[in-house]
Structure formats: C-alpha cells, structure tokens
C-alpha cells in the first residue's frame, strides 16, 4: 500500500512538472506574437479640412478620427481635468461617439435610444432638448451584444440615428422635432440596427444587425429629406438584389461570375446567411465610392454552409448614388470563426513602391492589416497585427486567406487553442490615423478560444449560431492591446497592453496624443510617437465608446468620451451574467470571470479640457 502511494505521489509530481514545462513553452512562443520594427513617416498627402466639430462618428469621410486641434499636448496633458459630465441614465454599453455640431452636442444612448442635445454655449452644457423614440422592448432580446448604438450623424441641419428595433429617424437638429421615421429592420426575423448612419449628399446609409439570428444582411440608402428608400443592396442572394451589374469589376477571380451570392451557398441558405452591415462607412469624393464591410455568415458552424458564402465577411465599394457594386474583396471566404468583416476602412494616399497610391487601411477581424488599392480592390499587403495560429497570411496573387485546416471547427468535436477567437483580433472598436506620425492606432484583442460545433435549428427570431465557445487571453496573458501600426512597412511601432480587451475606439490629435479607454474604466492619453501613457482618469464605469475631440464655443479644445460598460464582453456586467458558465455572453464567461466584482454598470459622459 505504502509503495503504491509513493508511486502515485511521484506520478503527480512528474505530471505537475510536465505541465509546468508545457506552460513555459507556450509562454516562449509569445515573444513572436507581434512584429515590431515599423517606423514613423509623417503623412504629406492632403486631408479633409477640420472645422473643429465632430459631425459623424468617423470624424471625416476618410475615417481618420484625427483632430487637428493642438491645445492639449504631450507637454500639458497632465493638467487635463473634467470640465463637465452628463448622466444618460442608461446603464448599458455606451458605444456611441458624441456628435458636435453648431455648438450643440448630441448623444445617442443604448436602448431606449434616447437622443440628448446639450447646449455647449452655456456653462455645464445643460440639456437643450431630448427625443424619446420609444423603441419596442422586445428588441433587447434580438440584439446579440447588449443594447448598443454606435451613434448619430449630423448633416445640413438634420440629425439621423437608428433605433434598436429597426427604425431610422431624422430630427431637426435645432429643435429635436421629428422630420421622418422609416421602418427598415424586422424584429420578428431577428433584425436590429446598431450602426451609426452616414450621409453622403442626399442619402443616409443604414445597415442591419442580426448576424447571430440568421438574418440576411443589407445596406440601405434613404433620401435625407423624405426618408424614402432610394436603394437597398443585399449581401447575399442574386446579383440584381446585391446590386451587382455592369459596373462590377472585382480584382480577384474568385469574386467573378454570376449570382455567386446564391451559388456559393447550399440551396436557399443565402436567405438566412448573414452578411449584416453594422460597422462604419467611408467615402472617397474623387472616386465617388463608399466603402463598407459585411459581417459573418450564419450560422457560425461552418459545416452546414459549404462554399465561399459570398458576399459575407468581405468588403464592398459602391456608388453612393445608385448603390451599384464596383468591386468586392472577401477577407474571410467561408468564414470559420464569426470573423465579421465590418471593420473600418481608413482612406489614405500612401507612397507605395515609388508611386503615390490611393489605398484604404483595414485592420480586419481576421488579424491582418490590409492595404488595398481603393480604386480596384487589389490587396497590396496584408500583415498580421495580432497573434494568430489559424492562418499563415494572404496570397497576394489570389487574394486568398491561407488557413491552417487543423483549426477548423467541427460538429461534436472540441478544437482547442484557436487564435484569434470569435470576436477576432479586432471587433467593432475603430482605429484612428495621425498624419503627424503616419501611424494607424489600432485598439484590439489578444485572445484565443476553444470551440465545439453543435447542431443548430433555424427558428426565426431566435439565435442561429450552432457553436459552443469559450475565450481566454492569448500569449502573454493580457487580453487587450493598442498597437501603433506603420502601414507602409506593415509592422508595429509600439504596443500598449491591457488586462482586458481594449473595446473602446481611439482618437488622435495634433497635440501628438492618442486617447482610448479601458474596460475597467480608465480613460488614457498616450504619446502618439512612443506609446507612453501621459495622463489617465478613472471614470465611474468601463469604457467601450468612441472618444472625440472638438473646439468649444469658447475656443478651447475638449475631449469627450461616454463611459458605460457593455457591448459583447461587457454584457457580463450590464446584463448581470453568471461567469461560472464559461460560455456566458457567448464565450466571454471564461475570459472575464471576475469583471462583475471590479466594474459596475454606468452611462456617463465625461468632457475634459485644460484648466
């Protein structure tokens, strides 16, 4: 008996030692996770003029989120202090960008989607008016990732925003009077709207959400004065409904052919195939093209939808007036991991092998920063900005994402250590670009997952996922990163790490600063050149919003951010979920077991300025 006992003890010790070694190996591989060696190249091409306002979430049509205001600098940012605050009274994920126009600030809240107008000309910016659209409470059960909205857009005296239950509303920006209200998304099919609309000339663009409910994705253009539908372009289905016609010239062979939105799916699966449009749009006035990404195909379980699943997990260039598709590129054909292609496209003109090219920079959910010729859709480069073990890069001749087949999810089997995980290397959180450094500031994740494919039934209005997932930190043990990226070299210049995913957007300023927030509530300013944190302030909840910079009526520079944890990971706090279940919040339970003990729900605007 005694000898058996000691043998067991040895075995246990040996096991522990072995496990320890394995951990060590795992850790060692982390040092190669992010490439460094990029450098700063000041940007000399022309940019849109900054009027000191912030009329749309993306700041400008090019999506730079760059503010030319320079009162707040690396030298004086330490004196930054709260100027005033405002309580939205909605303790859910605050993903909206505050909109500033005509000395008024407009805030769009998560469901019940209240629109507040604050008067910036008066001390403390008191409430000027509020508009309550009274959305259906049933919408809360059809939205995958908390009750978020990504904000409003101001154009020509009007304010446009979307409600979770599927309406686009236009208000008189001075009075809050409703001008029109158009019903676009059908809750009964699981459709909601969370994106921030964008306006080009007389059209306001709106897309749907619901990629986890088997909806069919679309982007719609509404007439800004009447709210009437001008055109609607689906992301799946026959060419005439995707608005693919004679002007469509994709760069790569895999995107050429008729009705690929039908033929790259099992029969009729395109009708419930996803490809929703809930990210940010960009616009190039010279080429007269809008750019946007399409989300994941449904369901997540890829085994039930063999084929490339066009036109999901890709991006379109379209004519804003007619909606006609001009080109398309699919970042993740036959998506395996819920890698929505909705990430922002930042339009810049870069020196490329001796000539100035009109490109777009796209830090994609699949972990690569794409540099794409925005006139043709040709991929010029695609380099990983986050740790990945699921792909080996992009073949620039064919445009194909090269996958590692072992990591493909399978029904009834658990595949472990898939990096990046379902929320991807980067989810919705928008990056920013500074002409001073020529760098793209990318807030993103460093995460992996275990996944088991499951059988799934399509029942309209209920989730259509077919996958069990659990997420955890990637190599290094931290879940969040802010990477300053040199798009020309395709390499990082510096990286800030954070315990939690950095789920907030970023803004860069001419003061040489990058502002961002953390899920545990810190709002921070980093030196755009070095990544050194120069200032930070603890807000009352977690930050997952979009910081903005504007000039007040008093001539001072202000920085504004909404604090209020929520969104997909933060729904653990906002929805009081139970993390004893690792699959809570569709996989975040395992990653964030203690976040409810560290952060509380909130919904407060903070505005900062120098004394």
């Amino acid at each position: 008996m005694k000898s058996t006992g000691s043998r067991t003890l040895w075995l246990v010790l040996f096991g522990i030692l072995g496990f320890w070694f394995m951990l060590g190996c795992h850790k060692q591989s982390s040092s190669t996770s992010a490439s460094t060696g990029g450098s700063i190249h000041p940007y000399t091409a022309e940019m849109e003029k900054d009027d000191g306002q912030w009329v749309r979430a993306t700041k400008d049509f090019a999506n730079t989120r760059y503010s030319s205001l320079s009162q707040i600098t690396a030298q004086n940012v330490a004196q930054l202090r709260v100027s005033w605050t405002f309580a939205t009274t909605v303790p859910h994920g605050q993903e909206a960008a505050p909109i500033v126009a005509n000395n008024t600030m407009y805030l769009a809240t998560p469901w019940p989607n209240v629109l507040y107008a604050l008067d910036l000309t008066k001390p403390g910016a008191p409430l000027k008016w509020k508009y309550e659209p009274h959305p259906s409470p049933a919408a809360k059960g059809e939205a995958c990732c908390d009750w978020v909205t990504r904000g409003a857009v101001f154009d020509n005296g009007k304010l446009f925003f979307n409600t979770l239950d599927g309406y686009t509303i236009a208000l008189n920006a001075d009075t809050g009077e409703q001008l029109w209200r158009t019903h676009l998304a059908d809750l009964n099919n699981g459709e909601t709207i969370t994106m921030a609309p964008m306006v080009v000339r007389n059209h306001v663009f709106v897309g749907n959400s619901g990629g986890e409910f088997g909806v069919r994705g679309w982007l719609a253009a509404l007439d800004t004065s009447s709210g009437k539908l001008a055109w609607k372009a689906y992301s799946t289905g026959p060419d005439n409904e995707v608005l693919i016609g004679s002007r469509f010239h994709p760069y790569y062979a895999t995107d050429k052919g008729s009705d690929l939105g039908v033929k790259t799916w099992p029969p009729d699966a395109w009708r419930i195939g996803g490809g929703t449009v809930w990210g940010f749009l960009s616009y190039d006035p010279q080429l007269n093209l809008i750019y946007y990404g399409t989300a994941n195909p449904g369901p997540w379980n890829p085994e039930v939808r063999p084929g490339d699943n066009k036109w999901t997990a890709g991006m379109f260039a379209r004519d804003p007036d007619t909606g006609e598709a001009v080109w398309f590129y699919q970042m993740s054909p036959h998506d395996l991991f819920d890698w929505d292609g909705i990430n922002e496209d930042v339009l810049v003109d870069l020196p490329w092998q001796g000539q100035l090219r009109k490109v777009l920079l796209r830090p994609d959910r699949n972990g690569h920063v794409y540099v794409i010729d925005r006139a043709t859709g040709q991929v010029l480069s695609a380099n990983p900005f986050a740790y990945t073990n699921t792909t080996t890069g992009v073949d620039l001749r064919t445009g194909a994402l090269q996958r590692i087949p072992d990591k493909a999810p399978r029904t009834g089997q658990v595949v472990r250590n898939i990096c990046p995980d379902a929320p991807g290397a980067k989810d919705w959180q928008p990056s920013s670009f500074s002409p001073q450094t020529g760098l793209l500031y990318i807030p993103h994740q460093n995460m992996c997952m275990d996944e088991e494919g499951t059988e799934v039934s399509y029942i309209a209005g209920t989730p259509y996922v077919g996958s069990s997932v659990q997420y955890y930190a990637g190599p290094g043990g931290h879940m969040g990163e802010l990477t300053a990226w040199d798009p020309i070299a395709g390499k990082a210049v510096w990286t800030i790490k954070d315990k939690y995913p950095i789920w907030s957007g970023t803004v860069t300023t001419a003061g040489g600063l990058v502002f961002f927030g953390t899920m545990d509530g810190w709002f921070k300013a980093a030196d755009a050149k070095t990544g050194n944190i120069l200032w930070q302030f603890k807000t009352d909840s977690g930050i997952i919003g979009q910081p903005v910079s504007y000039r007040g009526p008093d001539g001072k520079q202000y920085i504004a951010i909404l604090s209020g944890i929520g969104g997909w990971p933060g729904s653990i706090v906002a929805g009081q979920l139970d993390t004893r279940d690792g699959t809570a919040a569709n996989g975040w339970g395992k990653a964030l077991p203690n976040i409810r003990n560290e952060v509380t729900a909130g919904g407060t605007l903070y505005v900062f300025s120098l004394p």
Partner: protein
Amino acid sequence: MRPMLVSILLLGSLLTGCKREQRVFDPGAAGSQPANGTVLSEVAAGQQPPKGNQPNPIAESAYAVAEGKRFYQAYNCVGCHANGGGAIGPALMDSEWIYGSSLEQIHSTIVQGRPNGMPSYAGKIPDYQVWEIAAYVRSMSGQLPSDVAPSRSDHMPMVVPEQSRPQEHPGAEHPQPVVSEPSR
C-alpha cells in the same frame, strides 16, 4: 342618391350606437368566477399565498429532465441563455428570477414570452416538451434532486454539471436560511 347615402350613414351610426349602450347587469356571483392565470408575484392581494412548485412528475423524472436539456438546445434557448450563465437573455443558474422560478412560472414564460426580449413559443412546442424544458431550467440552478438533474455531459466542459450545482435561493422560494431570530 344623396338622401339615400345620408340615411345609410344614419342607420350605420344607430347600429353602432346600440352596442354602445349594452351592459351586463348580472355577471353572476363574484366568488363563482375568480380571474386566474399564472401568478408572478410572491405577494397575493387578500393574503392568499399562491401555490408554487406543486409536485410534478416531470420535475421528478431524470429522463424528462434529460429530454428537457436536449430541447433546450434544439429550440435555441442556449443561444440566449448560454449554458446557464446567460448572454442575450438573463442567467438561469443564479438566484435572480425576473418572472418567477417555479415550474409553472417558467412554463408560462416560455409559452407567453416576456416583454423585455423573451420571445413567445406559443403554438410552436408541444406542451409536454415545454414542461420538460421548464424542469431542466430549474435543474440549472440546483433546484432538482441530484438523482434527477443531468450529470456530466459529453460536450466541451464549460460549467459544473447540473447535478453538482449548489442550490441557489430565488427570493420567492427556498429563502436564505435565517441565521439569527429576533429576540422576544
């Protein structure tokens, strides 16, 4: 033509007017027709405590509860409530019960739906399957005997098996044990 139209309109208004004046003078003895439905509140007007969690063979059958677990997946309950931790919808393994934790209350929540996001499954699932799902849901917070609740699953480990979960204490039932009685 015109007088005819006028008279038709007049006749129409008279007809609707008749209904308007109709009343029921004798609805019967009040006690003979109490309004019933699934009770959601712990407090009952008139101090008649609602009866919850009557013995139910489904909640005592390991087979029925295992079937409930299967249907919980098949009808996409798992998509919103995960494996008890919640996602789009609330957690089901804790002690918070917005619309009641009794078998009858869970059954009616599934059938009727609830205004803040729970879709109604009325007319979509056979009644016995709803009861099986409701019983399984109770097992998620440790409300069923351990020989009835499901044990280890064959899938990716993500949560302690229902059988081994500590019994939660929903506010309306199984009150937290009283640790000190007020002195007389």
